[in-house]
């Protein structure tokens, strides 16, 4: 693949040698770092059978399954909720009426500025400590509401960007054949925007899944909380529990990320998407043949605006 990049030549004899040396140095540094961690693990007895013994009990794994379900159920509820909220906010944000558009814009901006964890804390600790109130919010509800509010507002911005990036002719053609505003939105604009923004939506779901781990901090009994619980007494296996939970979390996220990546490649290749580039990262007209100069200029004017919604704050 080294010949594929325009940044450098197909290496000659000297470059091959230099690249080999650099490669060797990289390998040595990585091996040293990993080796040091493994050495410390061995030196402090983290690999001893006694440390892993706990994970031979089926009761522990039943607890793990419950914790996994707690994570997954919060993710599913938050995922569905944030997509619904995202549509509502996006449509409100694009409304022709200022009395709808302005408040919705303000709400989106505020929700995007408050950290998810602070939202969860407001709904858990805050709501549950209102003097004189008998209403009690569960940790599950607090996690889900916090995730829905934040991810919903991020998805709203992504959908809006997708709709606004559609060629104007689409909307005009919709009106020309006699559709009403709702019809244009439902039959013309949204289907195209959803198709184009599907990779962004799925990528945001990965963020939602990762953020369910914040529930740990407000004592929602999800995977990390269970890992901490297993190691709550001295001498109990903390690192081992952490590693097992890490494997579970990373595999779930990798699968979702893989789906997002696959959708992105498919979207970019799809002939239906020609001449429509909502995402500065993926479908950059400057790196494809046959794009027009106007597209490139429009891209550059819009660059950053889309970057902000599609890649940046979704961390």
């Amino acid at each position: 693949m080294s010949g594929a990049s325009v940044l450098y030549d197909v290496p000659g004899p000297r470059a091959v040698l230099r690249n080999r040396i650099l490669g060797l140095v990289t390998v040595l540094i990585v091996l040293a770092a990993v080796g040091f961690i493994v050495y410390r693990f061995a030196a402090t007895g983290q690999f001893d059978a006694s440390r892993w013994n706990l994970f031979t009990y089926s009761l522990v794994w039943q607890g793990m399954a419950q914790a996994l379900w707690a994570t997954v159920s919060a993710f599913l509820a938050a995922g569905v909720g944030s997509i619904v909220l995202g549509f509502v906010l996006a449509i409100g944000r694009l409304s022709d009426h200022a009395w709808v558009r302005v408040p919705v814009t303000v709400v989106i901006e505020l929700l995007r500025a408050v950290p998810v964890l602070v939202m969860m804390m407001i709904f858990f600790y805050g709501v549950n400590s209102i003097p004189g109130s008998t209403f009690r919010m569960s940790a599950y509800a607090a996690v889900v509401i916090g995730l829905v509010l934040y991810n919903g507002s991020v998805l709203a911005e992504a959908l809006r960007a997708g709709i606004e990036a559609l060629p104007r002719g689409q909307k005009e053609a919709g009106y020309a054949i006699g559709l009403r505003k709702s019809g244009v939105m439902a039959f013309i604009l949204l289907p195209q925007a959803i198709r184009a923004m599907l990779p962004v939506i799925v990528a945001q779901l990965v963020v939602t899944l990762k953020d369910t781990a914040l529930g740990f901090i407000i004592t929602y009994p999800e995977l990390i909380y269970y890992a901490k619980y297993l190691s709550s007494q001295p001498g109990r296996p903390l690192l081992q529990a952490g590693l097992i939970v890490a494997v579970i979390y990373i595999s779930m996220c990798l699968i979702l990320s893989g789906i997002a990546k696959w959708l992105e490649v498919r979207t970019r290749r799809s002939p239906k998407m020609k001449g429509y580039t909502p995402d500065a990262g993926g479908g950059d007209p400057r790196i494809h043949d046959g794009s027009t100069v106007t597209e490139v200029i429009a891209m550059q004017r819009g660059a950053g605006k889309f970057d902000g919604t599609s890649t940046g704050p979704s961390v």
Partner: protein
Amino acid sequence: MDALLGNLDLWGQATLNTVLLFLGGGALALVLGTVVGAMRVSPVPIARGVGTVYVNLVRNTPLTLVFFFFVFGYPKLDLPEIPFMPLGIIALGIYTATYVAEVLRAGINTVPVGQAEAARAIGLSFGQVMTLVVMPQAFRSVVPPMMSVFIALLKNTTVAAGFSIAELAALRATVADSANRPGTVMEILLWVAVVFIVLVFLLSLVQRHFEKKWRIVR
């Protein structure tokens, strides 16, 4: 208002810690992210592989879990003791570095191919192509998304609250646990939200300023 003015000492300390986490984590992320970003576009296949594995692995790990390993896991390895604050900064830096690396890589990809081709055609080496031609142009398109990464980093500092670091989101526990501090939990949390809204607003102002200043005009 009492929740704010009655605990001014706490608010000062907490805000300072949040800013410290943000600046420390940001500096570490910039350095590490630049190295990883360079690795991901380098001519050395092994370096590309290492960079890809690092980015994909850390990006798909919840930040809470990264904190878990550094704050709870690190002391188990009998290494020299490090206070929670630097451990938190390292965790934030390592996590955010993957996003910095991806932004840099995406920025390099937005530089028109012809620029790199022309630079190559006049005989510049990989290092010269990068430092003299590609990087100066990539820098402009990188600034807005990079600021978004930093805004996300600022919000992510709150995760440290769950790991014994006394920053803004941890104020709730401090006030709730002490007998004679004014303010209810709800008041404190809402004020924390307000502080973050203000900080994020300030950062977006900076973002907009740089975006205007370095817009590509052709």
